[in-house]
């Protein structure tokens, strides 16, 4: 039996398969479909300082090999999360990461401080890259200086592992990665969605209420792989890769590119049990290739 465990900074995950924020609710929504103790970790839906209603419907459009979304961080805020949701999920036997979002540095700090107090939360993932929020989020994630500033501000208050999730809608992903690493990030995760648009030719209107939205699914995998590869070479801290992973082969490609772990997102909508299938698929791959540990795959891409 091969060893599937991976290290992410101080975290040890039973396997490299995690779920992406915004695609897995708070974990409890999937207990009818899979046993959560089979996963390396889950990243729950973004938590902001206060309640957010999110954007108006329509919030999605199906695209070729993917979809656009502009949900807009709908959630009931950190106090509701702490009081109502955390008690229900805290005993899940998997690594629970809270995705933290905000419009101002102060909001990020406020949420991070409150999550500090939640013993069973192993790490936070700083969402500086969501392209759907009109102000704040977009600005932080696309300018290296502000990305570093918000990372540093949260680093100063948050005591456990700090993951920073990068936006791909930037000129140089390596530069962004270095900025957040310098700001004190323990781990980098990427990519968030690519900024895109859909138009209805008959009505001549945009499909999304916000006109533009985030593209996810298999369509973005080549971009995500390229960025994970570039970032892995640019920084020394561990990288979590995501973007269009639908099966074990996809997951392994990200590990080879340099990721120590991966997140599965949109694929959960098509098959709620896909994450467990990916874990099993990685196991079979290791057996087939006579490998003893999944860690042998991390960064093992053969380039000339």
């Amino acid at each position, binding site marked *: 039996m091969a060893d599937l465990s991976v290290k992410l900074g101080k975290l040890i995950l039973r396997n490299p398969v995690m779920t992406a924020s915004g*695609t897995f609710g708070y974990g409890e*929504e999937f207990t009818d479909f899979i046993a959560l103790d089979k996963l390396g970790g889950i990243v729950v839906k973004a938590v902001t300082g206060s309640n957010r*209603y999110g954007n108006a419907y329509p*919030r*999605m459009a*199906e695209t070729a090999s993917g979809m656009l*979304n502009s*949900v807009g961080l*709908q959630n009931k805020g950190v106090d509701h999360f702490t009081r109502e949701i955390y008690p229900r999920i805290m005993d899940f036997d998997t690594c629970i990461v809270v995705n933290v979002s905000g419009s101002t540095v102060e909001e990020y700090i406020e949420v991070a401080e409150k999550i500090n107090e939640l013993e069973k939360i192993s790490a936070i993932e700083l969402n500086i890259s969501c392209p759907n929020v009109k102000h704040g989020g977009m600005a932080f994630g696309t300018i290296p200086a502000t990305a570093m500033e918000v990372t540093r501000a949260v680093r100063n208050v948050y005591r456990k592992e700090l993951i920073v999730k990068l936006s791909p809608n930037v000129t140089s992903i390596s530069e962004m990665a270095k900025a957040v690493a310098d700001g004190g990030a323990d781990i980098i995760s990427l990519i968030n969605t690519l900024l895109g648009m859909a138009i209805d030719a008959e009505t001549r209107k945009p499909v999304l209420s916000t006109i533009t939205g985030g593209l996810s699914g298999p369509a973005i995998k080549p971009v995500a792989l390229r960025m994970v590869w570039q970032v892995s070479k640019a920084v020394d801290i561990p990288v979590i890769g995501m973007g269009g992973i639908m099966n074990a082969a996809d997951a392994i490609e990200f590990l080879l590119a340099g990721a120590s772990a991966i997140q599965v997102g949109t694929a959960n*909508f098509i098959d709620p049990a896909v994450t467990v299938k990916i874990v099993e698929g990685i196991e079979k791959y290791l057996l087939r290739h006579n490998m003893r540990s999944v860690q042998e795959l991390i960064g093992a891409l053969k380039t000339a």
Partner: protein
Amino acid sequence: MESRKFIKDLTIIRNIPLNARHFILELQVPDEFPAMLPGQFVQVLVENSPGTFLRRPFSIHSIDVQNHSFRLLIQLKGEGTRHLAELTEGKKVNVIFPLGNSFSLPANPEVLLVGGGCGVAPLLFLAQHLHQHNIRPTILTGWRSEADIFEQAEYEKYGNLLITTDDGSCGEKGLITDHSVFQKETLAFKKIYCCGPDPMMRSIAAIAKLHRTECEVSLENMMACGFGVCLCCVTPTLHGNQRVCAEGPVFDIRELGW
């Protein structure tokens, strides 16, 4: 209130064309037959369909507990539904079900079911269910023309069927809201259940509101996951944005602020 959800490969027992644009798939459920209620829906994975990515949602049209099967009424819309239309007996489809909430039982037996187009889909199951509770509803369905009408006998089994056609070839001529049941000073019903195109449901809701009659509608928003996690299918309500796939698809019109 939330029933357990399943993902299963279901075998097609029958594929029944109804008219040029509608067909029925009757699906066999292996092993455990989940409890299903009218108003609930399923998410079907369409295989070999390169132009589609997400599952397709369909209301549960009717169930047969003894036979461990249920039916979907499907309207041909695009590539996804065209692939489903070609599926023959014996083929399998992967389905996530049952999803969503359900119509609530009425306090009073004087109920009206109103369905326009393939909005009739969940109403047959509702009529079946009311029948089991000794309620015989009035069922009003609207069609373009007599040639389009299907399953008349099925509905007549469970209720008093009224029909409107745009061209007057059957039943009363005009839109559903033109039907004579709505032209009376006092509405003969204590509750209305409605499903169909959005403008039609809003017109019925306005009539219900005018007569201070309870009314539940079934919404159809675009969905990605269909089981409550992506937050794409929301509709505005008195209590913020609620998910059509989880807090819905059935909503009381008062909750919607209609």
